[in-house]
């Protein structure tokens, strides 16, 4: 049963024929659209390595059916940098050693962007840790991740102020 859906992925409109309704958004991105930056960790919603932003909200792409995402705006790790210019959250993860092996990092970064947009954590490290608690890091880079999120949030707020001025 083939189903035709439209998506906007990293700003580009895509029409995709999904040949099997079982395909998740994660598998669509990785296997059909060759966007392999989004990682498949547990594939069961327990590790959040597959985090992407759908309609402005961070979700687990492994637990979303691709066909159900018809019409959605999707942002993945590939859509963040402008050429060699990294997104402030990417730069902050490097500056603060927010990773070791790097496997969970795309999900951590997309989750951090979602957390900052949600605006609930403020500058409280405990609230950042709680807000990032869905993203597991087997290397245990949590301290660096928390510092990176707080720093990136400050930088993004500064950029916003400059934009306004």
């Amino acid at each position, binding site marked *: *049963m083939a*189903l035709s859906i439209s998506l906007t992925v990293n700003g580009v409109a895509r029409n995709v024929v999904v040949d*099997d*309704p*079982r395909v*998740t958004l994660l598998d669509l991105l990785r296997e059909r659209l060759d966007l392999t930056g989004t990682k498949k960790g547990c*594939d*069961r*919603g327990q590790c*959040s390595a597959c*985090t992407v932003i759908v309609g402005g*909200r*961070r*979700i*687990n792409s*492994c*637990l*979303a*059916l691709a*066909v*159900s995402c*018809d019409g959605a705006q999707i942002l993945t790790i590939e859509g963040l940098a402008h050429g060699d210019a990294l997104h402030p959250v990417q730069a902050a993860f490097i500056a603060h050693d927010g990773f070791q092996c790097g496997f969970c990092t795309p999900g951590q970064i997309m*989750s951090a962007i*979602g*957390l900052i947009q*949600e605006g*609930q954590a403020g500058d*409280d490290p*405990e*609230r950042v*840790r*709680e*807000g*990032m*608690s*869905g*993203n597991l890091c087997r290397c245990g880079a949590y301290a660096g991740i928390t510092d990176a999120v707080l720093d990136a949030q400050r930088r993004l707020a500064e950029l916003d102020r400059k934009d306004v001025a």
Partner: protein
Amino acid sequence: MKTFDYVRPATVAEAVAAASAPGAAYLAAGTNLLDLMKGGIASPSRLVDVSHLPGLDRIEHLPGGGVRIGALVRNADLAHDPDFARCFPAVAEALLSGASAQLRNAATVGGNLLQRTRCAYFYDVASACNKREPGAGCAARGGDTRLHAVLGWSERCIATNPSDFCVPLVALDAVVEIEGKAGRREVALESFHRLPGDAPERESVLEPGELIVAVRLPAEAAGFSAHARYLKVRERTSFAFAVVSAAAGLRIERATIVEARIALGGVALKPWRARAAEALLTGARPDRAAFRRAAEAALADAKPSGDNEFKIELARRIVTRSLALAAAGTPERMPALPASPFALAPGARIHV
């Protein structure tokens, strides 16, 4: 995963018709259902995708003070709705203590009510489970039962309901609005989930094709907003299901409890309202002795279903502490760790 037909109805009536066929299941966010399908625990032959249905994603504050929550409202949107969180703070706290931010961004109100148990034997298709396969037996009996039920269980099933959201909802007399072939009906949340008895495969009162369209809280539920808490013991700080949880709401006038609401999570196959405990508190002074008496009453019928006797005393202590926290007053801001027992009880000392 077994393949399935995917249908996307445009109206509630179309959805009900499509989901009335044998083997059909509703799909909203899919955060629980897709997990179950990947594991072979659920294998519907048709998915009826209701996530695009119009009009079910609204939070309506009703004249007189109640609220009507559309079934497709996302858990995170409800918890962060300022008016909702102010009127029903324990519900917001429970929502934010559940799952992860990613899951709360996707998971819906209706789906939360219908999430399946997290019993490891239910999830393991190589284990016997009466809920998964009626008559197969229960591998949990005599198995690893640390997290299983201490109230309302049967020889057929000792699983628990994993929802946090439902615990304060049942304490606050929530009503479930249901649409089916015969039209609309309403069921009190307290009567919505079924205890296992001899048919643990029947988990709610929903008939085939029936769809949850909204959950309503009455105006009286907002009367507890000044003294309302949810408290949840987990085996790690965050992103874990409850070992035991409790919702507590108090109305206090002139240093006397006028009305109390208490419900427990993680102890039974349904969110567990503790009415006898509530009655004991009416007219009492809000002190530790009264809270402990209420907690004893709330667990009076509890009995271990295996190696989980500890949960009974743990539940008494969680009820006692949630009442003490509620009496101390709803925090002005949501705690950094919602529902966490790591925050100190009022007047408590730090134990290292």
